[in-house]
């Protein structure tokens, strides 16, 4: 009798399991777009975030005054409807959109802009850099504001694309202590004017967004109602979940994954060249790489084609900055193919015999290691021994910055790998942060100590030129000077790729950044 009771119990439990099982791994709702990101979200605070990935998510929760047109660096009205720039590019008068409401129902006015500026300036970090040049801010009327800059800056409108606007009343309501700008609340929650509102954040796991019906930009009928961003740090897991339909798009994958996913009829791989470029930066202040002929020899010793074959997420580089910001122009004489004979000749001309040098890359960035190994094997044929070293990015960064003061031969690095993308759509975002002498140990990544006063002067000059055409002419001169000096090996340009379920429609790459335009997408 007891045995029969046991068997019956087991049967009932088994049946229960079978009926409940599918719910555990069921497909997501059709009106929900699930995607996995590449990094963990550190914070949702619009004025504290430093990661571009976090910014791409918040771009659909918050709004900016001035954005840019799709695939172009031309400014586009967002919360601003129009603007007037003084001839000397120092005074910007901006007319604001009326009738816009924050997700909590509060009104968007000039006060919100003022308060957002104060909040960003208070934290200084994240978007704080946008306001470095602002000397004075005035509210002209409830829907007009005026920025007066410390110095002429023709790029200011494109910088405003990084300043999200918050609601003053909502921030004040959520302050723990008066004047703390509700930093705690905004780390996990959000209240903007964008097309989606944050309904929940589970730290380390997911962020849930839901369609904001009152979005000022309006809605067409069939767009996704909910967006769920998953934080998954393992590429294989992301791929498996995409293939089974639990996720609609993934950000983390290898070239091998892409090749395999291209064969899957349920998936599509969206791809286009990005504005991110990979450089091998060479020490301009000490060691054999201070000689331009040696630097060029090192560049000729890199097998670009082999690298693109192994890492098919890369294509040829445009030089110091991508051609989209230069009206399609590229500097002449760019070294972008392997030529060992030329490399030998240049080393001979420089009178440099066999030597040893180092290459440093951030731990975990495997494609940088592979690039270094390709380079290493060719350098060996030239009698150059390349020591490939790795450190975590913060350690590596601190070491390279500290060297500018110590000049200690014991801690010197001859080269390192640098991936650089831009936050605003102008060639200035490359040249100023990669090559200006101020960026040595300061803002940006001039960590191999490139220093050319003429380049500094021209970059400054470009900043003051309101005409994009005139700016591009100056940028051309700068890029050509840099290409001639070859402070970097311009290894390649990164392809933006996004594997996605085939039934998702409306996706496009903006070309200039990696955003997923949720509010234009739907499922067929």
């Amino acid at each position, binding site marked *: 009798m007891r045995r029969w009771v046991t068997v019956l119990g087991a049967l009932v439990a088994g049946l229960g399991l079978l009926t409940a099982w599918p719910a555990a791994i069921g497909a997501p709702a059709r009106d929900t777009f699930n995607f996995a990101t590449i990094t963990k979200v550190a*914070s949702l605070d619009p004025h504290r975030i*430093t990661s571009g990935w976090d910014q791409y998510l918040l771009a659909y929760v918050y709004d900016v005054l001035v954005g840019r047109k799709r695939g172009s660096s031309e400014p586009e009205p967002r919360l601003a409807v129009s603007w007037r720039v003084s001839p000397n590019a120092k005074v910007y008068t901006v007319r604001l959109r009326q009738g816009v409401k924050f997700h909590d129902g509060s009104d968007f006015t000039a006060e919100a802009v003022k308060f957002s500026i104060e909040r960003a300036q208070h934290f200084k970090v994240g978007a704080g850099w946008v306001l470095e040049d602002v000397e004075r801010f005035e509210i002209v009327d409830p829907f007009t504001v005026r920025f007066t800059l410390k110095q002429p800056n023709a790029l200011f409108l494109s910088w405003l694309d990084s300043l999200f606007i918050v609601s003053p009343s909502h921030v004040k309501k959520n302050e723990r202590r008066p004047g703390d700008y509700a930093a705690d609340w905004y780390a996990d929650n959000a209240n903007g004017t964008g097309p989606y509102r944050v309904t929940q954040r589970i730290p380390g796991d997911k962020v849930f967004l839901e369609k904001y019906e009152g979005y000022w930009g309006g809605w067409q009928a069939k767009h996704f109602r909910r967006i769920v961003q998953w934080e998954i740090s393992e590429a294989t897991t992301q791929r498996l979940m995409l293939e089974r339909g639990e996720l609609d798009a993934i950000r983390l994958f290898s070239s091998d994954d892409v090749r395999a996913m291209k064969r899957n009829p349920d998936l599509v791989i969206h791809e286009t060249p990005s504005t991110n470029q990979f450089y091998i930066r060479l020490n301009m202040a000490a060691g054999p790489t201070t000689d331009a002929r040696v630097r060029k020899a090192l560049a000729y010793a890199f097998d670009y084609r082999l690298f693109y074959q192994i890492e098919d997420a890369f294509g040829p580089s445009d030089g110091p900055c991508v051609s989209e910001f230069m009206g399609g122009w590229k500097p002449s004489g760019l070294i972008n193919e392997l030529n060992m004979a030329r490399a030998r000749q240049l080393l001979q001309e420089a009178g440099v015999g066999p030597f040893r040098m180092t290459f440093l890359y951030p731990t975990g960035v495997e494609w940088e290691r592979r690039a270094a190994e390709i380079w290493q094997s060719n350098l060996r044929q030239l009698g150059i021994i390349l020591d490939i070293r790795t450190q975590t990015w913060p350690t590596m960064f601190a070491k390279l910055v500290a060297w500018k003061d110590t000049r200690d031969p014991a801690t010197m690095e001859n080269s390192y790998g640098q991936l650089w993308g831009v*936050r605003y759509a102008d060639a200035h975002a490359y040249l100023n942060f990669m090559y200006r002498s101020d960026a040595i140990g300061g803002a940006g990544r001039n960590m191999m100590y490139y220093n050319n006063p003429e380049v500094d002067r021209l970059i400054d000059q470009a900043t003051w030129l309101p005409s994009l055409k005139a700016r591009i002419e100056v940028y051309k001169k700068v890029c050509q000077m840099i290409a001639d000096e070859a402070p970097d090996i311009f290894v390649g340009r990164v392809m933006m790729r996004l594997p996605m379920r085939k039934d998702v429609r409306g996706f496009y790459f903006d070309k200039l950044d990696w955003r997923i335009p949720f509010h234009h997408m739907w499922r067929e």
Partner: protein
Amino acid sequence: MGLLILRRLAFMLLTLVGMSLFIFLVTHVVPQDPARLVAGDYATRATLEKVRRDLGLDRPLWEQYYLYMRALVRGDLGRSFMSNKPVLREILTFLPATIELSLASVVFSLVLGIGLGVLSAVHCGRVIDHLSRVISVAGAAMPIFWYGLMLQLVFYRRLGWLPVGGRLGPGVPAPPSITGFYTVDALLAGHWTTAWNAVVHLILPGLSLSFLTVAILARITRSSMLESLSQDYVRTARSKGLPERRVVMVHALRNASLPIVTVFGLRLGAVFAGAVLTEAVFAWPGIGTYAYKAIEFSDFPVIIGFAVIASMLYAMVNLFTDLVSFALDPRLKR
């Protein structure tokens, strides 16, 4: 017994101070500049200086440590550089997920490890014994993440039986937080489907995390049981006519359990460490991934806070193991 616990607690306190000092020195001596990461790529030198001042990174090392310890005494682990939120609050957010996963792994380890060990000892030299030894060797030989990926490929991709990502499936809302354990919170809230979903999500990561412990427990149980089964009291029990199951499970296993408990106690700490890899493979939002991210970001307060809490948990698990050992063999108290 009370004195012993007090002595162990005092020793635990010393360990924590030593650990905090060690981690503090290691994190601060390595040249790193978290201010740059906090401020962002475009921050000017002036902004960087301000951030360094705000974070207290411009002060001498001894002063930074003194301030840290002063706050620690008040239960304040500082604020995360990454999120600007109190570290303790963040740890308490992430910790339940790791504990829940570790407990699932403990259940799998005990059931499978001891079960295999007992079966192996009872059927010594037969097929099941050989099989158990193969499993033990394989369990100890392969890394955790490999098991994780294999389980995903078989049970998620191939068979489609079990989920892999996160603590709950898509579209399943998290239960109201009471304990932080989704299984318990969902049951308390009466959300049966959510509870079931949470349990199913625990299976693959829990199994993956338990493999090494299963292997070690199976081997130690087998050898300990073989010794026990050859003792006179087992022969006496059998000659008294007791059923074999009772002889094995009560008489032999109880006497064989002391080394099992000791080894298991040591493994509990390792389970916590192994959770870092398992969490990464299964997108489990626990303290392991949180700490890993902090290391990547040089988030000193989080790294030290994590080390302090992890050492405390490890010390408490050891204390608990000792207490269980005393209960099993009161002679050890002497």
